[in-house]
């Protein structure tokens, strides 16, 4: 089956075109061993089916990073099942023709049949210009098809051109104005290399002649005759004063010439486009920042306003489902508990995350589609660059304040692998919404009653700030020692503002949602069942009766409901999870936690919010406790150690919150990190560094407060 590779500059409309051609039938994976996304699909042309690969956007075929290397390798026939493409479709942005033509000149020399898809002609029109596609086609010597991707215009012609060029492949033969003496040497060497069976493109030979230390030069070491011819050519060029910059300079001279020839003004040319006018305000020193903060605030408000009701609705629905199914399984209590408390609870927890995640991706995709995301990166780059990240990390990190999973997935857009990885590694430190129930419970129980709502609010704010502050030195350490490699320079193109392409938005939401359900979702369900099993077994009716008798004996006039709660508490305490919690109690004693707190922390591995209902059970309040439950607050306040001293002081409670703020408990996040980094190494490292940090911080808070008699 023929392979068609779609290449082009970033912001040329490549993804929009690919989405229009292939819709939701895309297979998204990683190139092996790296974190570069491989997006492929199948296209039905006139008489045949072809495989279609969306190659990541490139500014040049000379890579300066591993990510770019991976993308360019597709053209070298490496990295995509050792297959070379049969045809290249180069997406060219008509509204940015000169720079795009530079890339076209490289692609045209790569040795593949080529079809050019000319996009953004509508934007060009708005700018008062028009591009003559036929003239461009003649000058390039390849088919040039204008397309308006999201509207589907020109698609039939494009598919027809692809079909035609697969049928009768032609390698383009345009000339790009390189100096004659250089080109003669290139042609001569090419012929000599071909005679001994070595096939190099003109571009490769040209580059080898101008820049020492190339692969080609090394390959000639064992061929003295060819090496001599090569060295002579290099010497001659040096004597003529030929600089290595002549290659890029010649390409751009050609690009400028062609652009001038095919572009013409249509109607009134605008001196200041709508984009310019918008940007005057949106990237203004002061107003730009203010509007930016407002947009971010609105995004968050929307997430909580729209997502909350959906999430509450889903929780209620799953509760109802659990009860309905449970009532049919009364006869088999173990199976009933497994299905209701394990499976339905697990799936329900996973699905209640989904609205938040989809809404986040909706906002991210819309902001990206309009072009505003680039402006946000521009505004924030100084703040983030100082820490060792880049402006592009802002949206991923901000999203992580809602949930780290979409934040980590959003980090994909960062072209620099080093800061992308650093961003992913600190994203979970941003206090996500799942930690909120813990904060609200503990602040409501320990801070507000004693210190009032003012301090309560401040503590909540401080908890969110904590993650941010801790992230800064972590990024430094990661960049200095732990993450290898050099950082890419920061280069950001500001595309003109556009209406978002809704198909691209829905597809982004669909694919990312799918990834969430498959990666994070599976883990949540699996962990829910595991934690359920560990907190359920061993269980026996005899033991339950024993606990009941114990309770009735020590509490005269006890109500049956209270006895039930006591039984539940004892069952959890004697389960595998509870026994494990009691066994490792000494580890958490320095932080001021007893085995009940420890067991509840352990139960939070599937999802952090589970700690609240767990605390409810373990403090004998039965199931279904919520974060604002006054019963639970009172229970926590009055809980004591065996010797009668209060279990949790306000500072120990803060220590517990700090533990939650910094600990990597969320298995779903770790699973997402594993998928996005394409290895277990970083997920494990994240777990180790965050949990250690959380533990040391909680111990620190408790010990320091004890020292000061707090």
């Amino acid at each position, binding site marked *: 089956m023929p392979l068609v590779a779609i290449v082009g500059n970033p912001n040329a409309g490549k993804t929009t075109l690919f989405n229009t051609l292939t819709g939701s039938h895309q297979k998204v994976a990683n190139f092996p061993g790296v974190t570069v996304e491989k997006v492929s699909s199948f296209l039905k042309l006139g008489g045949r089916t072809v495989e279609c690969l969306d190659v990541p956007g490139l*500014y*040049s075929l000379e890579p300066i990073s591993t990510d770019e290397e991976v993308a360019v390798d597709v053209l070298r026939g490496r990295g995509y099942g050792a297959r070379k493409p049969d045809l290249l479709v180069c997406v060219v942005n008509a509204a*940015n*023709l*000169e720079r795009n033509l530079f890339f076209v000149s490289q692609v045209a020399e790569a040795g593949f049949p080529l079809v050019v898809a000319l996009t953004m002609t509508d934007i060009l029109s708005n700018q008062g210009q028009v591009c003559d596609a036929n003239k461009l086609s003649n000058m390039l010597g390849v088919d040039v098809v204008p397309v308006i991707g999201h509207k589907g215009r020109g698609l039939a012609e494009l598919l027809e051109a692809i079909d035609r060029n697969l049928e009768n492949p032609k390698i383009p033969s345009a000339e790009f104005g390189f100096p004659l003496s250089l080109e003669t040497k290139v042609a001569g060497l090419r012929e000599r290399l071909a005679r001994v069976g070595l096939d190099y493109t003109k571009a490769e030979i040209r580059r080898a002649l101008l820049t020492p230390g190339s692969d080609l030069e090394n390959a000639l070491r064992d061929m003295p005759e060819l090496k001599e011819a090569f060295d002579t050519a290099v010497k001659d060029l040096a004597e003529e004063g030929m600089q290595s910059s002549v290659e890029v*300079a010649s390409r751009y001279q050609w690009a400028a010439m062609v652009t001038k020839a095919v572009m013409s003004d249509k109607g009134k040319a605008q001196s200041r486009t709508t984009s310019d006018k918008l940007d005057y305000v949106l990237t203004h020193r002061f107003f730009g920042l203010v509007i930016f903060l407002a947009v971010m605030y609105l995004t968050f408000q929307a997430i909580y306003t729209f997502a909350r009701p959906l999430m509450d609705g889903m929780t209620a629905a799953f509760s109802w489902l659990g009860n309905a199914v449970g009532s049919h399984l009364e006869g088999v209590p173990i199976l009933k508990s497994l299905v209701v408390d394990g499976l339905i609870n697990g799936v329900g927890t996973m699905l209640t995350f989904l609205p938040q995640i989809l809404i986040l991706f909706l906002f991210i995709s819309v902001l990206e589609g309009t072009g505003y995301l*680039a402006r946000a990166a521009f505004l924030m*780059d100084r703040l983030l660059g100082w820490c060792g990240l880049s402006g592009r990390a802002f949206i991923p990190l901000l999203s992580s304040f809602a949930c780290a999973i979409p934040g980590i997935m959003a980090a994909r857009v960062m072209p620099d692998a080093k800061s992308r990885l650093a961003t992913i590694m600190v994203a979970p430190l941003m206090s996500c919404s799942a930690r909120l129930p813990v904060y609200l419970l503990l602040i409501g129980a320990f801070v507000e009653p004693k210190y009032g709502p003012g301090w309560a609010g401040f503590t909540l704010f401080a908890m969110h700030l904590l993650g941010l502050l801790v992230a800064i030195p972590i990024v430094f350490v990661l960049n200095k020692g732990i993450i290898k490699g050099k950082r890419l320079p920061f*280069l950001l193109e*500001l595309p003109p503002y556009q209406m978002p392409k809704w198909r691209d938005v829905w597809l982004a939401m669909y694919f990312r949602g799918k990834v969430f359900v498959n990666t994070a979702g599976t883990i949540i369900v699996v962990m829910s069942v595991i934690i359920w099993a560990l907190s359920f077994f061993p269980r026996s009716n005899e033991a339950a009766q024993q606990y009941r008798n114990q309770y009735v004996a020590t509490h005269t006039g006890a109500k049956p409901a209270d006895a039930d709660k006591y039984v539940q508490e004892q069952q959890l305490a004697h389960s595998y999870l509870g026994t494990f919690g009691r066994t490792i109690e000494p580890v958490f004693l320095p932080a001021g936690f007893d085995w009940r707190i420890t067991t509840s922390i352990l139960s939070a591995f599937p999802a952090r919010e589970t700690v609240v209902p767990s605390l409810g059970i373990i403090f004998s309040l039965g199931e279904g406790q919520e974060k604002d439950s006054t019963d639970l607050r009172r229970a926590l306040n009055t809980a004591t150690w065996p010797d009668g001293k209060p279990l949790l002081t306000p500072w120990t409670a803060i220590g517990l919150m700090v533990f939650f703020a910094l600990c990597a408990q969320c298995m779903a996040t770790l699973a997402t990190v594993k998928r996005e980094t394409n290895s277990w190494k970083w997920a494990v490292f994240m777990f180790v560094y965050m949990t250690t940090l959380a533990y040391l911080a909680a111990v620190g808070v408790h010990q320091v407060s004890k020292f000061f008699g707090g």
Partner: protein
Amino acid sequence: MINVAAPTMRFNQVRKGMKARVVKMKSNSDMLKRLQEMGLTEGTVFTVNKVAPFGDPVEITVRGYRLCLRKNETDGLEIEVAE
């Protein structure tokens, strides 16, 4: 054509509203190579549109498109003011 009357300066000395020309790339670093590939070749004229609120990056228009780059990453890029 080099304007002999105008002194060459480093890129990180640009100001908002300035119109400038690339004079020379003093090294072969990846950044300078990439800047050339993005259109900032010797002799190319560009305009500085604005500077980000905290002083960096700067936004320029070159060859008809808008590019943001950090002043502190442009070591070796020599420019001169153009008319």
